[in-house]
């Protein structure tokens, strides 16, 4: 089991979600995030004073998948979320020891 974490541009969420559903991914968890990297932030101006906003809004997606799904899932995310422009984001994969479905206490792949 692996946890795939993807930090992406928010407007790509729908497309990525659909691509993962096609692969059979049944669920995912999203958090709002602020990214810092090569992509620049912006400036806001209130009453003549400038305020730099370094961070750019991102969504952070977590999907727990079985081993054999890691590659297809990562590939699907990268393929769908890429616009070719700076700031498209990162995907990383983390090992998972165990997964449990709270409702049923099922464990492992059954829990997904």
């Amino acid at each position, binding site marked *: 089991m692996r946890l795939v974490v993807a930090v992406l*541009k*928010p*407007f790509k*969420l*729908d497309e990525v979600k659909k691509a993962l559903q096609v692969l059979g991914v049944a669920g995912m968890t*999203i958090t709002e995030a602020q990214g810092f*990297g*090569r*992509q*620049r*932030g*912006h400036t806001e101006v209130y009453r003549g004073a400038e305020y730099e906003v370094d961070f*750019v*809004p991102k*969504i952070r997606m977590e999907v727990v998948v079985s081993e054999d799904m890691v590659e297809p899932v990562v590939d699907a995310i990268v393929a769908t979320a890429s616009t070719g*422009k*700076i*700031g498209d984001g990162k995907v990383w994969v983390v090992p998972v020891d165990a997964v449990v479905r709270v409702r049923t206490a099922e464990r492992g792949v059954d829990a997904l």
Partner: protein
Amino acid sequence: MLGTLTPYPNWLNTGDNTWQLVAATLVGLMSIPGLAVLYGGLVQKKWAVNTMLMAFAGFSIVLIVWVLWAFNMAFGHPIGGHGFFGNMVGMPHPIVSHFGEQNRANIPLVSGTGAMPPFHYPTSTLAYFQFVFAAITPLLFLGSVMGRMKFKAWLLLVPLWTTFVYAINAFMLWGGGWFAQQGALDYSGGYVIHLSAGVSGFVAAAIVGPRLKRDRQHGVPNNLLLVAVGAGILWLGWNGFNGGDPYFAGADAAAAVINTNLATAAALLMWVFMDMRFSKQRKPTLLGAVNGMICGLVAITPSAGWVDGYGAIIVGIVASGIVWVAWTYLPRIRPFSKVDDALGVVYTHGIAGLAGGLLLGFLGDPGMVEYLGKGKTASFSVNGLFYTGSWHQVWEQLVAGVWVICFSAVMTAVLCLIVKKVVGGLRMSDEELETGDLAVHDEEVYPPEPFAERVGVLAAASRAAEGTGEDIDDRSKP
């Protein structure tokens, strides 16, 4: 052509007509948007839409009821007969024909008897002015029952309550009915409006049952800026509320305005002082200030043009102090500990209204002239205990107060039970109670921005950063 057209009949005074229409508009603004957003900001986020919709709909219903029958129940000819029951309510009758709207205003048992000077404007003006008072009253007690009452039940309770509670109390105190005949007084509605709303809300809250336990525990307001918007409109709108009630743009209207503000300022400061001195946190709070402000506005309402400025300041301080203590300690004892009066209407309107009504009996200054007498006629003013040593006015105020409490409580209970029967329950379903606005109206007060919308900033920003090349990166290498 028609060279001799004239703009208005000669009984019409443009200043009085203007004052009354503007005062009415100010009072209307107190409901919509005033109370709607005051309550909308004070309730939990999950109930803001529901509360506001009930306010807008309630306001609308009262107007229809008012012009079709209730205005004349409150201010028309008595239904006939002698004694208490013959002077309890007026004959229902619409006022929306062309004659009904444009003829000269008259309250048969008051201006019709010479107990006050004849009006200088048409019935539309008087009826609209009185409507905004009738409309705000159920909106006030909405604060007691918000967060669980069925919308349909509200749609039915409001017209019934206006007809069978409000119109009757109004006739008895303002329309020249029984209590008015005994000498009880209520300048602009400390009893007819606030005491009645406070009691009725409390009773209705008891019958409808409490909000979800979770809602009572986590019932934090959602937006104090909007509370300030509503509170500010209430305060200044009250210039129309009390300033309009002499029915003429005279000297007493001006005195009522300044007295209203004096009591309010004093009450606000008093509550802030109590919070700083006696609350557990010993800190001044904005919502405390707003509570104090409302106490002052409510408490001066029964006496605004009949006390002088000193009296007004005393009314504000005393009422605010009493309500502060009640607000702090009564919730520990029954029935206050049991009934879920969501926004505490029974305190800031009920108790403050009663306190103000009784204080008139003590503080009414005979030198404050509402209408001037001519020749041998005495001017109209009020004789408070502190000026005359007579308990008469105190007694009249007490009797009328007891009546308003008992009658409003009993009638509201009866009407709630009728509505329950007709609509099939007063409460929302559990699912609706848990979810709030989204379940009941499919709306949220601050609809969430879809994820997709958050891209905008990026689009612009990344374009700016990219320039021409690909890996322009002036930040990652230090």
